[in-house]
């Protein structure tokens, strides 16, 4: 905080940008009707939870220095389709129809496999962007091929309802899982051996290699974590809709028009270093809530999807510029 204040005083451009941004945000909040209500607050947190959970998974990847995965929405698509298939057809086994634990397990397994396969290629030296761009096409192709691009729906009273539409102590289940996952992930990153290794490999790959922490195993583990969390969100989303289609996450999701970019934006707006080694999941969670707040504000003001995408895009570019200006001349550059 002290650093931020001192560089705020020193850097004119940074201070102008930040002040402008904060003023705009405050104006927007106070000029909007019905913003400060308990119901609206719940909506915001609920929106934030969906991409917040995925973004927490992506934070692991980013912290370990593997940039980001471009296959997030496709992983979610194949997982959501797989869950719906399990709930409606039981993967061809008669007694498995509508069996929530088996569908969840199979879906998580598929998610983990998809993540591990991409992690393997990344760890072997492939560029994360290119590998996951290819992986995304393959996963989406398999998802559409599996379902013939149809909507798979399953019967309404089912075992998965508590996850999709249920609530506990006044907050939806998905919000609770967001809070729990955020706390758990922060605990893992901060206090466990594995978490410290993530920071080590991310901040200094050469030192990691010299001390026996190769990126190969690290990439596989972090990609698996990220994909498993994507699978979890996909299951919750499918349970909420009681149906699934391969392009649930691609077209016009939220205000972004693209789930993957929204999740990456969440990680960046929170201020995690994309180069790795710097950041935590609290920043990511704050980023998710922040994006949800701004998006909600724009929706309440009746803006169309075009201006809303411009708004979120401006926010990403702004945060990149602000953090780049803030970090200029310090470490974490190259």
């Amino acid at each position, binding site marked *: 905080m002290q650093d931020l204040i001192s560089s705020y005083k020193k850097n004119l451009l940074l201070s102008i940008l930040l002040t402008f941004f904060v003023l705009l945000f405050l104006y927007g909040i106070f000029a909007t009707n019905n913003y400060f209500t308990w119901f609206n607050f719940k909506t915001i947190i609920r929106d934030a939870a969906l991409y917040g959970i995925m973004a927490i998974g992506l934070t692991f990847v980013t912290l370990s220095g593997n940039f980001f995965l471009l296959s997030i929405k496709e992983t979610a698509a194949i997982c959501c389709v797989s869950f719906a298939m399990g709930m409606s057809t039981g993967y061809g086994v008669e007694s498995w129809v509508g069996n929530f634990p088996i569908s969840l397990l199979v879906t998580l397994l598929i998610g983990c496999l998809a993540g591990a396969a991409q992690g393997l290629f990344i760890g072997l030296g492939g560029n994360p962007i290119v590998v996951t*761009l290819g992986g995304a*096409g393959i996963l989406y192709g398999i998802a559409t091929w599996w379902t013939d691009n149809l909507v798979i729906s399953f019967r309404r009273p089912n075992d998965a309802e508590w996850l999709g539409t249920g609530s506990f102590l006044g907050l939806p289940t998905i919000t609770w899982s967001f809070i729990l996952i955020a706390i758990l992930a922060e605990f893992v990153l901060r206090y466990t051996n594995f978490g410290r290794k993530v920071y080590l490999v991310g901040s200094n790959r050469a030192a990691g290699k010299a001390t026996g922490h190769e990126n190969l195993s690290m990439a596989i583990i972090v990609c698996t974590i990220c994909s498993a969390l994507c699978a979890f969100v996909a299951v919750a989303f499918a349970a909420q809709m009681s149906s699934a289609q391969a392009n649930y996450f691609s077209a016009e999701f939220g205000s972004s028009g693209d789930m993957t970019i929204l999740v990456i934006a969440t990680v960046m707006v929170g201020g995690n270093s994309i180069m790795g080694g710097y950041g935590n999941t609290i920043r990511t969670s704050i980023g998710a809530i922040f994006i949800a707040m701004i998006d909600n504000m724009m929706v309440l003001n009746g803006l169309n999807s075009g201006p809303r*995408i411009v708004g979120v*895009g401006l926010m990403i570019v702004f945060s990149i510029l602000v953090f780049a200006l803030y970090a200029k001349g310090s470490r974490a550059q190259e």
Partner: protein
Amino acid sequence: MQNSFISKIKQKFISNPDLTFAFFLAITVYSYFGFSVEVFASHNLTFAILERFAVLGLIGLALTICIIAGEIDLSIGSNAALCAVIVVKLTDPIGAPLAIVIGLFISTGIGFIQGFFIAYLRVRAIVLTVGTLMLLRGISLVVAEEKTVMLTDFRVPDFITTKFFMYFSPASIMVIFVFILVGIFMRFTKYGREIYAIGGARKESLAAGVPIKRPMIIAFALSGFCAGFAGTVIGLKSGTAQGLGLQYLLLAGTVAAFVGGVSILGGKGGIIGAAVGALTVNFLNTGLLFYALQVHFVQLFTSVLLVVVIVFQTMSRIFDQYQSRKAFLESVDHRRENLLAKRDKFNLTNK
């Protein structure tokens, strides 16, 4: 004379395994479809392939330039979409030539600004271009007023798809012309060589006095120009444009660039490779049309092609490392044997 020419070509292929692999892939894909689909190797289809090449080749070229500079531009699809929307929207009121000039000016300007920020703030391009991907998509939605923009006068689409010389149309001739110009620029001018320098060895070239800002800005402006040009061609050819369209171009262009033999580490690859890569992807896309598959299967096969190329590149890198390590160990063994032999000789003579 003949012999030396062949050996020269042979030398070229041996020294550049990625380009060889690109040619190999292109010939494989083409001959597979040529043998299995009857009409594949006909004049009309060649014309169709060149028409598709006009779009995809430009996107592949744009990504190739960025990747040679050691960065990757993710906002290429959005940039193309924005240019398409602007050109299609302006063609009716002010005429096609002026609309194209304005559209290309805007996309080149966007590339210029991106390159400036990347060089000045020293952020990685993937970080900034993820943001501009979304920003430009939003802007093109706003410009198109969230509708599909359409031409009313179809003389322009008719003109740019006229067939002449059997295989060519004005669009594809323009694109081939751009390819040649960019190729000469990258290969023979100082500015082009600077782009190679900052991509291949950034620290070394900085130490040698190559400015980082100028080549970065030139590379991104060029790639913005190519993306905008591709958007113009698509928009004018079909007469329509959408704000959310053209996002598939990123995958197709990346595949084209990587098939063409660029390395993600930068500083490698060339314009010939980009052309061959784009042609390969076009052969694949066009050939798959004859199997009447659903549209996502094309994406699936394109991704499989990308994975094949990545696996080849990674394996060849690992193989190179293995080879050099082996050679190093052998030389160490050799030296040790020499030393031992010397010591034995020394001991013998002293006894």
